[in-house]
């Protein structure tokens, strides 16, 4: 059996946290939220809660994940830290460096490209002075280029926070950005 199909709590030298160590991680509220996710899986598969837990931690940290949080989560879920790094660095919904108050994510994949997302990207660069991955000087938002959002039928698509916006024109995008705090 390969390591990807076996629970990491078995067969690897991963330090299981003591109760004391566990209680020193995060806050009681965050622990309760992560525990609720862990409860959905068999006991030895705590690692299954990695993605929801990363969301919880990211939300609690102003939209990005600090290295310490990743290490703490590894300890909390009984995983080697590298396994948490792999997940956190793979998905574009996780940020590993400080971000603005909002995330404006413009799809750059093929349907949206044909539908005009390039125009949106240039618009953001010129009007707001931010390249992909950058944050406006006032810290209002971080502009991210992302791969297909799965909303191809109404391209171009933009994801702001957790809301999808479809068939977005530069003007519509301005309005959306104006509406952000």
């Amino acid at each position: 059996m390969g390591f990807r199909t076996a629970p990491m709590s078995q067969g690897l030298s991963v330090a299981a946290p003591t109760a004391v160590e566990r209680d020193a991680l995060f806050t009681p509220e965050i622990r309760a939220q992560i525990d609720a996710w862990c409860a959905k899986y068999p006991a030895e598969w705590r690692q299954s809660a990695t993605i929801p837990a990363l969301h919880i931690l990211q939300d609690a940290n102003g939209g990005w994940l600090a290295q310490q949080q990743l290490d703490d989560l590894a300890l909390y879920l009984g995983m080697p830290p590298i396994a948490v790094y792999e997940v956190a660095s793979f998905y574009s919904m996780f940020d590993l460096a400080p971000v603005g108050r909002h995330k404006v994510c413009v799809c750059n994949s093929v349907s949206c490209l044909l539908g005009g997302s390039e125009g949106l990207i240039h618009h953001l660069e010129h009007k707001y002075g931010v390249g992909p991955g950058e944050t406006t000087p006032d810290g209002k938002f971080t502009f991210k280029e992302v791969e297909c959002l799965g909303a191809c039928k109404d391209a171009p698509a933009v994801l702001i926070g957790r809301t999808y916006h479809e068939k977005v024109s530069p003007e519509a995008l301005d309005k959306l950005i104006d509406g952000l705090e």
Partner: protein
Amino acid sequence: MTDKITIEIDGRTCEAAPGEMIIAVADREGIVIPRFCYHEKLSIAANCRMCLVEAEQGGRPFPKPVPACATPIAPGMKIQTRSKLALEAQRGTMEFLLINHPLDCPICDQGGECELQDVAMGYGGDFSRYSEGKRVVQDEDLGPLIATDMTRCIHCTRCVRFGAEIAGVREMGATGRGENMRIGTFVAHTVAHELAGNIIDLCPVGALTSKPYRFTARAWELTQAEGIAPHDCLGSNLHLHLRGNRVMRVHPRDNEAVNETWISDRDRFSYQGLASADRLLKPLVKRDGAWHETSWQDALNRAAEGLKAAAGPHGTGLGCLISPSATLEELYLAQKLVRGLGSDHIDHRLRRQDDRADTLGPTLPWLGLPIAEVERLAAVLLIGCDLRAEQPLLAHRIRKAAGEGAGVALVNPIALDLTFAATQFVASPAGMLAELAGIAKALNQQGTGTVKGLIAAATATDAHKAAAARLTEAGQGAAVLLGALAEAHPDFGLLQALAQVIAGATQAKVGYLVAGANGVGAGLAGAQPQSLPGGVPVPVPGLSAAAMLAHPRKGYLLWGLEPGLDLGNPAQAAAALGQAESVVACTAFRSPSLEAVADVLLPIAAFAETSGTFVNAEGAWQGFRGVVAPPGEARPGWKVLRVLGNLLGLAGFDQDDSAQVREELRALCAEAKLDNAPRGDLQDLPLSSQQAAKPRTWRVGTLPIYAVDPLVRRAQALQASPLALPFGVWLSPADAADLGLTVGDPVEVRQDGASAQAVLALDPRLPSGCVRIPAGVVGSESLGAQIAAVTLSKA
């Protein structure tokens, strides 16, 4: 493999077992399918797509080429590895793989032995259609053993899977995605695992290469020779890569019964020690306290005179201490020489302090089962064994057993960092007896003599009961193994007695993880005081290593060791050897603690320089040849002994080559049987005086992984690795507080009149009442026994 099925590969009919992958069948048949990510010993990732082949089943072709490494065979399957479709798919994959691969073969250490080069030659196109820029990946420093050029990585993930599945430590991973995916630790930390060097072999490209070897030779300049690893009782099979008269690097040689396809870093990088600056190149004699070079003739004469004078008319004045990593031929001739002079005082068990059990314990101890069977054990009890440091690859077999659900329990004076689930009973050296007694009690054993008292006084906790139950359930699939820390224990005899009681109650086999590369062979060769070659008992046994030093002799013959670092009690050794009238040392290296006591130094060949034989833990005689000439005037050890024997006028020293020596011994071993059954009643042994004194603080003198013998201690890259533990004093946080010591304090260690100073560090893995002070490392030479009472105070 009962229900064989038949398939056809490239028109050839092949038998195979259901569930086998196409590539495994093809490999067995000698049909070549290109691959990068597939490796027989690792899980299947199927991520490189190099192994695409055309397949059809029941007359219906698969719609697309299929990966041979991840497609299980089915009856009647027909596979084509070289059809147009297959070749095109392979060429396509190759083209994709090369998009981002740098064209730096001329400066790449893998050049000439690179799987990517080979497969590109065989299956790729001859030019690239890509003119875009290639990506560049930043390197990480993985430590002194493994060099990285991650831009060359093709993401096969073999190294990642090796870490997770074989090493049991996930340090490497694949972070990022798409073009930004990279292999590394993400946080740039040194990879610290005793088997990590294997990823150099696994990496199909030049992304991971050997740091000590890189840029020193090209693959096509090397010739390959065979060898046997000289550091532990496994005897891993090696390929030695030579250029001219020099070992340039060491690779594993596949042997499923011994090392599978791996070797430990110790076996891989220790060759560096061969080129160390302190090789002894000429015979030296001491005159008026100063060393002088001399001729072999003169040195041998002096040696012969010294030994003869020391032996005296009855031989009893002479003692011989010989490394358990000496070759079988050296061990045999050395004992012949010593016995020829009338002495039975010869021993290879250099770190054993409890010799009271010598005549009661087994004469020819061994692993007790074949090495390959270790991974099929259902329960293992390890006693006094720093497993990963002592036996890195056997640890891997035990890890495999644990992965299959075996119950592994350990009784040790320090908790170990293991890579598998195990129950660890951690107790002081005195407490170790109580833990074992607890297990014996859980098995309803009473015992006799001292053991009876120990069992009566013990409590069987739930953990003891659980461990006992696992051993009982496993029946004949259980083993009780004693390691090097047990051998160094002052009550080794009682540990053996308890092991026998537990094994007797459960049908478990008893096994010994003997010290050195040839501990089993040393027994067979008769290089021990209680038996002659072939394990024939000596009526009145000679003195053990410990006894020869406790009761100083007039003269000594030392073989392949440094008294300050290789003997169980260096302080006592220094005194005994220091007072001797003559000390003849045969050694490959100069060494301060040797030069302080010896009168004659004879340069002998080291690993790879001499022919010989090692008998490994399972009793396999593994012979090897000398593949490079010894440096300077150094000579193979068996020849030196032969000449010495002749000079001393002893009979039986006229062999023409080492094979003759070996055959002579083999004939003597015709009846010999490796056997772990005790010959007497070990249970009656009284507690050792150490134990009886109930010390407040015990020294736990672990032997660091890269401190086990003179050769490995001189391998610079290994010494720079984080596993090379330096001299120091470690206490549990609670004990440190008790003694009023804090981290960083200089501490004075006093042991039996000897003393040393070191800086305090904390180690929560230590049980209370124990201080970890490593042996075998510089700084420890002035101390006493590895496991014994010590006192600590602030210096």
